[in-house]
């Protein structure tokens, strides 16, 4: 059972002369613990694919299953997509998008409370996640008191709050320098290895590709796999 599986996704924007086909029958499966990179130039359809996989933007056609459960069939939702996002998907973005009026630990707790996990248990779980990501010493700090790399780690902790089977990341290293970018990708690698999370990362940074199991390239709405030697299962490069 793949954590995420998409079959025959099609998406068209506009009509007539302004019609743009963003997805042309895209199919994709990501295994448990697999870290996948989505490459491609701007406008190739990467973001459309990521928002479709994230259940934010329905495809016109195609099926999507999350953790073995069909959630989109023939371009139509078969489940409460917000509930699926809440329980099964974690998101990380180019900007950390932390809530500025919450401390680091409160931002992580938010991911838990949205899933009705409250109280001491939620606090303990949030603290464990921050410790796992190496920023437990900053848990009482507000986002503005954290560096870009620290903010991104808090955002990853929040995305992992309910241990989702799938983590979707949209250019998570674009705002970081080289060493911090590597550090974030190493984290994804570690999360996939240790937790079995399927990680899909949209990236432009070709220096980081060694850490991915599978590379896909989007071009003009079509997806193709790029030949690539994946790292060993327990290997974290750099």
């Amino acid at each position, binding site marked *: 059972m793949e954590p995420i599986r998409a079959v025959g996704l099609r998406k068209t924007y506009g009509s007539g002369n302004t019609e743009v086909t963003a997805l042309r029958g895209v199919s994709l499966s990501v295994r448990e613990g697999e870290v996948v990179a989505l490459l491609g130039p701007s406008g190739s359809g990467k*973001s459309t694919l990521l*928002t479709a996989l*994230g259940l*934010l*933007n329905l495809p016109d056609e195609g099926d999507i299953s999350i953790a073995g459960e069909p959630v989109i069939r023939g371009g139509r939702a078969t489940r409460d997509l*917000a*509930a*699926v*996002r*809440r*329980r099964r*998907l974690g*998101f990380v*973005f*180019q*900007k950390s*998008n932390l*809530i*500025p*009026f*919450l401390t680091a630990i*409160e931002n992580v*707790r*938010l*991911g838990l*409370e*949205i899933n009705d996990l*409250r109280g001491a248990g939620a606090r303990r779980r949030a603290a464990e996640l921050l410790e796992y990501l190496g920023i437990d010493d900053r848990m009482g700090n*507000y986002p503005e008191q954290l560096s870009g790399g620290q903010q991104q780690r808090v955002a990853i902790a929040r995305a992992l709050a309910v241990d989702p089977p799938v983590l979707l990341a*949209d250019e998570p290293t674009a705002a970081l320098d080289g060493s911090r970018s590597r550090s974030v990708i190493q984290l994804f690698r570690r999360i996939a290895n240790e937790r079995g999370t399927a990680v899909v990362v949209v990236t432009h940074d070709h220096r980081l590709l060694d850490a991915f199991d599978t590379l896909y390239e989007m071009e003009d709405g079509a997806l193709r796999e790029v030949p690539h030697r994946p790292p060993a299962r327990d290997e974290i490069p750099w």
Partner: protein
Amino acid sequence: MNLAWREIRRQKLRFVGTAIGLGLLFAVVLAMGGIYKGMVEDATLLIDSLGADYWIVQRGTHGPFAERSVIPASIERRARSIPGVSWARSFSTLTVERKVEGKDIRLSLVGLAWPDDPGDWLRLRDGRPIAAGHDEAIVDATAGLGLGDRIPLGDTRYRVVGIAEGMVSSGGDALAFVTHSDLLRISSYVPPEARRLARAAAGDPRGVERGEAEGTQVSAVLVRLAEGADRGRVEAILSSWGDVSAYPASTQRSFVLLGVVDKARRQIGLFRIILVIVSSIVVSQVVYNMTAAKTREIALLELMGARTRVVVGMILQQSLLLTALAYGAALGTGALVFPAFPRRVVVGTEELISAGLVLVAIGVVSSLAAIHRALRTSPTTILAG
């Protein structure tokens, strides 16, 4: 974890500043209601305090609070002779302006039926009721006079022997109580030189001018029924008198409210409605802007799959907290400022509760536009960089 509180905690000063600003606006809304209530209380104060069952006034008039009313003082004796009448007292008022202790003061004089009524029903802050038949006065505290001060009225300087509280006329002037005979003396007083000139003009240097004879006129006669009196019979007798009109106290009260206060009530009422609308618009704008400023956070919550109630709750709680804080600021402002108003501002528990409910309604209605905006926020907004 309460998101509304968490955000406010991070922007305490801004939030409190906004609430204080709104509080001042709400204080004006409260003041408007309080001024109206104060006007009603002031206008009906004497009618309620004097405790008469009937007011006998000049035929065809609505009585001394609505227009000039003059009836013979002998009506008092006539009324007293009706079976079932406990007491009958003459009533007159006279507004005067005098300079006392270097201050210009305006007083509304009321005659007390001394010795039956020494004014012991008045709430005295200082001093005592009237103890002598002449030359003593009880004055409301708002006149700013002290015990022992002398007020020049007619040919006498009346000594202030008591300071009353909460006794003002429908026009907001301080009430001053003297004996009814003193009041008649004051109202009919003509300066000696004027009296001499009037006699000379009439060609009768030793005659009595008309002013002296007017002392037998009063504004009204108040009638109180004895316990168990036959009200219908008394009413029948009073209405059979062709020279005067007699009204129950409740009718006299409604004449005052409809005549003296009604236009002011409507004016204040309309002004209040405008203020409530302005307050609603201001609260809506504040709440809407607060919501617009966190579009990304709301989009993030939607993207994370937060239930609608999380977002709606955050906006609604902030709106209600803002109005609650503003209400508190309005109460504080009122407690500090209203006593300094030249006229009474009466804000009772009923007004406080109804104002509180109106503000809750404003808080809820004001947040609707912000909630509408929040619910239309697409989670993909967060991906827009």
